[in-house]
């Protein structure tokens, strides 16, 4: 310690351990508990169920992680998911081909992402407000397009795709896993990923490094909205019909999953894999409560308690590690 400026800061294994969010403990606890409560909980069928139920939430929560890393938020993902589903379904029913309909949904996602990204990235408006607005717009548009009626009777290909498996793994799980792989490559191995952390941590620094930080910022929202537009295919496959408000509210669950996974709302601190853990925790809880046939009203309470308990653990651990330091 004689020369503190030269002294190397090392990444201790403890630091890695510290990254594991508190929800992991709860997740493990829940799995043990549910498995004891009903041995079928760990059956292949049920694991498939959990995977299927988690995959759509994961599709929203993963890009949401990137947005939260930029110290932002996207409340519009649920409504946008619904809107893109409605657009695809309506166009399919109107006789468009699947690729054309998907392209149209991507366009919708592009516009939504561009609006969010421009207002947040370029104009610096608070993301909560901006995306709350676009959320209203998307939900409203879905209602206007459908006039409130669900749209069904389109090609069964989507459902078949949703229900297909590869090596006994459901395709949606593979899709979500692929997205995780791609995003983690993007986040940890590319320039774009570095810039995402930099925007949340110090956007000016990125600007001064000669990078068009606003564009990157907008790009994160675009990426999110485009992913959401593609996820609409999974949603359609799952529900076999398009409802204007089917996914409204999922944004809050996605955000909760991200934060459960240890990603902070500030400074670009976070971990993509934590989001996977957060999504799993929510999905396992819901599935397990069903498998154990817990009374419906208690299920509602349990969701709230999961959130509070996980954050409580994180808080305690953070305090403990600070006390040691």
């Amino acid at each position: 310690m004689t020369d503190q400026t030269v002294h190397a800061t090392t990444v201790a294994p403890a630091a890695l351990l510290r990254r594991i969010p508190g929800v992991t403990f709860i997740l493990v606890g829940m799995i043990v508990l549910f498995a004891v409560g009903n041995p079928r909980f760990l059956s292949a069928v049920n694991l498939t169920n959990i995977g299927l139920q988690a995959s759509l939430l994961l599709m929203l929560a993963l890009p949401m992680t990137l947005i939260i890393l930029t110290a932002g938020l996207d409340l519009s993902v649920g409504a946008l998911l619904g809107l893109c589903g409605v657009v695809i379904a309506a166009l399919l029913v109107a006789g468009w081909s699947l690729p054309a309909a998907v392209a149209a949904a991507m366009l919708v996602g592009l516009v939504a992402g561009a609006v969010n990204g421009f207002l947040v990235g370029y104009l610096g408006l608070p993301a909560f407000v901006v995306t709350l607005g676009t959320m209203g717009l998307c939900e409203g548009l879905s209602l206007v397009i459908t006039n409130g009626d669900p749209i069904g009777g389109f090609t069964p290909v989507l459902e078949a795709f949703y229900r297909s498996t590869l090596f006994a793994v459901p395709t949606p799980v593979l899709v979500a896993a692929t997205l995780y792989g791609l995003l983690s490559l993007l986040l940890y191995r590319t320039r774009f990923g570095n810039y995402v952390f930099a925007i949340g941590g110090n956007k000016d620094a990125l600007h001064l490094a000669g990078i068009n930080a606003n564009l990157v910022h907008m790009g994160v929202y675009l990426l999110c909205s485009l992913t959401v537009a593609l996820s609409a295919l999974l949603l359609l496959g799952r529900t076999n019909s398009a409802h204007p408000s089917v996914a409204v509210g999922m944004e809050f669950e996605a955000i909760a999953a991200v934060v459960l996974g240890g990603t902070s709302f500030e400074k670009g601190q976070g971990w993509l894999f934590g989001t996977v853990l957060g999504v799993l925790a929510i999905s396992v809880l819901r599935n397990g409560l069903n498998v154990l046939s817990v009374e419906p009203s208690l299920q509602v309470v349990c969701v709230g308690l999961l959130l509070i308990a996980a954050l409580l653990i994180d808080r305690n651990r953070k305090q403990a590690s600070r006390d040691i330091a």
Partner: protein
Amino acid sequence: MAATPAAETTAPLLRLIDISKSFPGVHALRGVSLEIHAGEVHVILGQNGAGKSSLIKVLCGAYLADGGAVEHEGRRVAIHGPADANAIGVGVIFQEFSLAPYLDIAQNIFLGRERAFAKAGVIDKVAMHAAARDVLAQLGLHYDTRAFAADLGVAQQQMVEIAKALSQNSRILVMDEPTAAISERESERLFEVIARLKQRGVAIVYISHRMKEVVALGDRITVMRDGAVVASYRRDEVSPDVMVGAMIGRSLAGLKRREPVPAGAPVLTVSNLQTARLADISLEVHAGEVVGLAGLVGSGRTEVVRAIFGADPLRTGTIRLNGADFAQRPDRSTRAGLALLPEDRKREGLALPLAVGENATAAALWRLFRRGWFAPAAADKVCRDLIARLNIATPGPAQIVRNLSGGNQQKVVLGKWLAAGSRLFMLDEPTRGVDIGAKTEIYRLIDDLVQDGAAVLVISSELPELIHLCDRAYVMRDYRIVGHLGRDALSEKAILDLAVQQ
């Protein structure tokens, strides 16, 4: 990255000609001309608001100059953005670091230039970390490049900044008050690095308030005032007095020590205070005294005043005010007559988006309106009185604090505590980022306070300031008080001897 031989000092590397920049209502720069030579340290001196920051921003492409030209090695260049500045080798180390807290050292060093390590868009992390270690090694540093910037100390972050600039082959390195937030010891380390850089032919533009550094480092010194260059010297042709004179437009005698006031009864008695980091802190401040809390940055000075104020939890120890115990909570401390002027006034001292009036009465609402009913007229009057008493340059209490200069902002923070009727003032770096004019006024105010029987505990990294102000001082190292210096023993050397572990 190869070392460039020291260039001819006769031909300037970069020449700024007649640069001007104005904002609505303000001429930030008026026809500034400057020559920057390779292998030289060019110090820019000036009070706050003299235009130094604007100049840097023009240099690094953050501002677009309204008029004037820039010549790089004799050729006209245009700086339209950070990319243009990078292209001619300008690197800036700002006071507020441009590091992303949750990127590691290597990622921070090469932020924006990852392409060099990318294969098909994927970054080769091994190569990047190796390169980062190389750059740091050139500065004689051996950091673990996987550490997050968030886990580094201020000085270490600064070194990473320098490494970052160096890795960009910066030929011109601009440093904005680099020693403002680091200890003397760390400053020495920095000066060594600067010397190394000079040898390699890097031109350094060094901005500082500290005359000692200016004299020690500067090869060429330019003084700015009101957005214009008032004088430019070579080091050997100028004395500190002349430079200060140029800065403030008149000659100022060196700082004399403040006349002591007869000390009264003890106001603050701290014994055996211990917190998560601090150990064994005992000190006493009497009425009519200015007591210094000296030590390097990171030695625990700020933590002591925060703990006394109740902002951080205590483990053990007693704190008495006028002989009585009081609850260690900021609201109770305030009501008991304690005042804390925090180190970082923008983050902790002021609500920047609110008005001067709202800020000035923030700590005094309980005292001015004991029943809890707020009267705007009364608050307005209190605020106008403070503005007059402290000579705060503002159009009125309704002015948003963000729009004031640093010195005037600091006066608002002080005014907050005057309004609260505090009897013990704990001032953490009261003159940081404050121009000389405001500085003298703050000194005068401190003097007034003790004349009036209040007690003052001052933290400062500027030793001359401590010696000027204080009747005596405690010196800290590693979160402990390691010594006490009475009025006669108080000297820069004495403080440094105690503050730096031998």
